[in-house]
């Protein structure tokens, strides 16, 4: 996963959460609410998960841990 | 006993036989019931033989077409046929009733597509079916074409061809 991919995932995570935020602030009809929840909750959890994963991977201690495991070989 | 039966069912070769057997059992059971037709849905015309006799009596030529003649004069807009339809339509009793949505669209866009409407599936070809149901014709031919597609693909791409 390159840098571009991470940026793309961040953008997608924000874009897919926008309908949920809209639904919270506006009073939408029921059908629209259901559609938003069913479609966007899984997708946004997926992309938020990808962003979280990238963050966890970029942490310094993660790098250190990797080094140790590789020298361990 | 049950175990042996299930072992048989687990073998694909046996499945059609057992399936057919189950259908036979149900059909045999159903033969013992009394069958009743819904009289009200029979075609609202005299029986074919009676029609012919009536025709002889009245010297009406159109009655020679006995069961297929549904009354009315051809190409006469004021003289509708006598039909008993399942679904309501303003064009009921006409030869062009029960067009599919696509045919209706064709009818509405132009004056010059008469034959096309008549000839394509879902047009009036299915008039023969008495129940005059447009989509059925399309579906039946679709099933047929799907079968033809599969068969031709299998034949064209068969392995070990010379």
């Amino acid at each position, binding site marked *: 996963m390159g840098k571009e991919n991470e940026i793309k995932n961040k953008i997608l995570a924000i874009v897919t959460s926008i309908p*949920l935020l809209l*639904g*919270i602030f506006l*009073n*939408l*009809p*029921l059908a629209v*609410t*259901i559609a*938003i*929840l*069913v*479609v966007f*909750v*899984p*997708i946004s*959890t*997926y992309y938020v*998960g*990808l962003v*979280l*994963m990238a*963050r*966890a*991977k970029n942490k310094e201690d993660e790098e250190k841990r990797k080094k140790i495991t590789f020298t361990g070989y | 006993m*049950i*175990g042996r039966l*299930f072992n048989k069912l*687990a073998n694909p070769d046996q499945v059609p036989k057992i399936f057919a057997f189950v259908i036979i059992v149900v059909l045999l059971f159903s033969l013992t019931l009394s069958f009743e037709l819904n009289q009200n849905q029979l075609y609202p015309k005299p029986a074919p033989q009676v029609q012919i006799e009536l025709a002889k009596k009245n010297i009406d030529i159109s009655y020679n077409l006995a069961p297929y003649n549904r009354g009315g004069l051809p190409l006469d807009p004021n003289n509708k046929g006598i039909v008993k339809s399942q679904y309501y339509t303003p064009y009921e009793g006409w030869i062009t009733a029960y067009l599919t949505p696509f045919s209706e669209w064709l009818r509405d866009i132009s004056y010059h597509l008469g034959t096309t409407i008549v000839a394509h599936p879902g047009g009036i070809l299915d008039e023969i079916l008495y129940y005059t149901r447009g989509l059925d014709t399309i579906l039946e031919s679709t099933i047929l074409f799907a079968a033809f597609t599969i068969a031709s693909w299998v034949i064209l791409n068969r392995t070990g061809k010379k």
Partner: protein
Amino acid sequence: MYYPVNFNLIYILLEIITAFIFGGLLLGLHRKVMARIQGRPGPPIVQHLLHTFKFYIKELSIPNTSSMPLYVAIVLAMDAVWILALIVGPILGGSFLIIIMCYAVHKVAEHGIGLASGSPYTKLGSTRAVLSATAEMPLIAVPALVFFKTDTLLLDGIINYQIVNGSLFTQLPLVALAMFVLVLSKTPYSPFGIVWGKDIVSGYKTEHFGVIRGVMMMGEILAFFALLWCFITIFFGGIITAPLAYMVAMTGITVILAFICALTPMVAPYHAVMIQWIFAILAVVNVLLI
């Protein structure tokens, strides 16, 4: 039945999150009880939830052999379908048939998850998913027999019927048993859990890790919660109405499930189909007798 025109999204979202957390705790409890029966200390009850969150920060790598949009999309479909079930069931009190559909799609998703990765282990799991679906679909259709008793399949209507005529559990015990077997087959480590049995590594889940596994576990938690909710509503709807009572009942059923899971071995695939099919026939007999 009356569908309100405006329904707050926050309310529904909170309900889904509650279902997720409570379902996760229930599955944790399930593991704990099983461990205690087998004489082990067992993980803490929050372990299952922590497990799900842990996968969110683990690296995701998609196998080179997988069939691509399907690999991700089908896991998301599994989540989406149970969110739909949770909206239709507890909030709207809608048709039970929609939950049958959700269950069907869940089985399709299991099959697809197994196929999409291209690994032979997941392939085995997905083959078993098809095998179990052939028996579980009739089983979930059995509560449709409740229709002959109550003349309605709307969950609201079923609750109303039970408030007037007493709980359905006493009237249709064998149908309740069939539904219970269905819930049992969706519990981890169950005798009918042939799709994720440890004899085929992890069944259809073998190749899924990282974020995707987290999303998948979320879907499974929601599924467990939704099925438990359906079971309680359809057969004890008149007695249990308050949310707290629901929680107590769910905990009780989870403990029973844990006892069954801990004490029974996993049956062979074809035998699982056979046993479940027998339960379905028993339920039909029960309905015919009344």
